[in-house]
């Protein structure tokens, strides 16, 4: 196990000639960049293809001959990403600790004492230090998503792909988890798909809005200051209104 996996830093470029999904032409001549070591957020109306784009980067789409995903360091991307979904995807028959170690089990790697220590350490960091032996069914939604975050960190990959991971949580838990994710994923390259403009504004260094069919990307909103951004920040609220407006227009276009 290389300890410096996460500190690899490279940009990712997605090039799509033409991508058809479920018989709909989702993307045509789309170029999308993800900057290394930063949070890239992807906003858009539902059905615009955000998740499809994320799955393309994750290598989960079949038949993608007309699209390429390349890294600036020339290496392959598969094997260097980890994925966090809206559902926590904790396996109900495994304890929280075993769920965090599931990547090792799925690759049939031997689980060393160091691995277990690291998993326990990560669980302590997400606030589940005392719940490692519990089954997922006994945890609250927020705790389950914390465990999922620990599992994501355990994978120790430089790129983290998140598909609306906090959208099913209540407002307070969501803000707490955003803070936690921003802190723990500081060294990572993150692609966050979300439908919540405020979430994008709190966490994103580059915020893209995906709209239309075939979908196009607007010029990204770039904010280089430290994250998570303070909710008291009034410019955040002004920008939220602006983004909501754009999303509303996009949704109206899709419906037309």
């Amino acid at each position, binding site marked *: 196990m290389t300890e410096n996996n996460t500190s690899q830093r490279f940009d990712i470029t997605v090039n799509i000639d033409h991508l058809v999904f479920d018989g709909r032409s989702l993307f045509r001549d789309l170029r999308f960049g993800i900057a290394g070591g930063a949070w890239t957020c992807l906003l858009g109306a539902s059905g615009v293809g955000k998740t499809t784009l994320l799955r393309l980067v994750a*290598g989960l789409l079949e038949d993608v001959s007309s699209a390429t995903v390349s890294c600036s360091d020339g290496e392959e991307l598969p094997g260097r990403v980890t994925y966090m979904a809206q559902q926590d995807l904790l396996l109900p028959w495994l304890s929280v600790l075993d769920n965090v170690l599931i990547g090792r089990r799925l690759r049939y790697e031997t689980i060393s004492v160091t691995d277990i220590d690291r998993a326990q350490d990560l669980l302590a960091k997400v606030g589940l230090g005392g719940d490692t032996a519990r089954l997922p069914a006994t945890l609250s939604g927020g705790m389950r998503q914390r465990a999922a975050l620990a599992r994501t960190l355990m994978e120790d990959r430089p790129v983290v792909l998140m598909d609306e991971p906090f959208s099913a949580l209540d407002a307070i838990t969501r803000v707490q988890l955003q803070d936690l994710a921003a802190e723990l994923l500081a060294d990572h390259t993150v692609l966050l798909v979300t439908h919540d403009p405020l979430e994008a504004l709190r966490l994103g260094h580059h915020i893209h809005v995906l709209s239309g069919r075939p979908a196009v990307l607007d010029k990204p909103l770039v904010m280089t200051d430290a994250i998570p951004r303070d909710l008291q920040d009034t410019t955040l609220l002004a920008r939220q209104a602006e983004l909501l407006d754009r999303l509303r227009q996009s949704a109206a276009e899709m419906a037309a």
Partner: protein
Amino acid sequence: MTVFRPLLVFVILIAAWQILVMLTGVQPFILPSPAKVATALLDRGDVIAGHAWITLGEILLGLILGTILGTASALAMGYFRTARQWLLPVMVVSQAIPVFALAPILVLWLGYGIGSKVAMATLIIYFPVTAAFFDGLRRTELGYLDMARTMGASRWAILRQIRIPAALPSFASGLRVATAVAPIGAIVGEWVGSSGGLGFLMLHANGRMQIDVMFASLFVLAVIAVVLYFAVDALLKRLLHWQPDTQPSND
């Protein structure tokens, strides 16, 4: 409470039976009273027990064989496309022909011993186990599979670590049904041709107008079936301890 309620139901049923016999004055060779059946059970206990062991052995062997074959078939179908294409029709055909119709042939081929009865029980158990387990295997939540693929899991690892455990609740449902129907296979086999077992004893007693012995055998068979069902159910609950029971308690 869990023991009390079934016990109460049992006592009420026996009482109703006794009252029915007393009120109607029905002949004992049509419907013997519970007392007569109890006497037969005690007097002929050794004979009934001997036959009961044979039937129990047939059921258990059938259950084990049927479960092994069913599990293997479901796993093969879940993992190999070719197995899916070839085994699915076999499974359907195995159910299209009623086991009752097969019984004489099985007795002809496998003889009067327990072989033909075990085969019958196996056949009857095979389908529910295979169908339920296979159904569970192909309904794995997509998110789990996505996660496993990004983690670099092989197809085998996904089957072993995710699809099989996720399919266990379905497998358990199939096995519960199988356990409930397993005695049918053994008894039908014994009726068609045998020299031992509760089914044989019932026919034998029927021929000699020993209706009380017949009822006593039926009672023992029912006890075997119920005990077996609850034993399997308890075993499955232990295996699936992680699965929360979401039936509301005040339902």
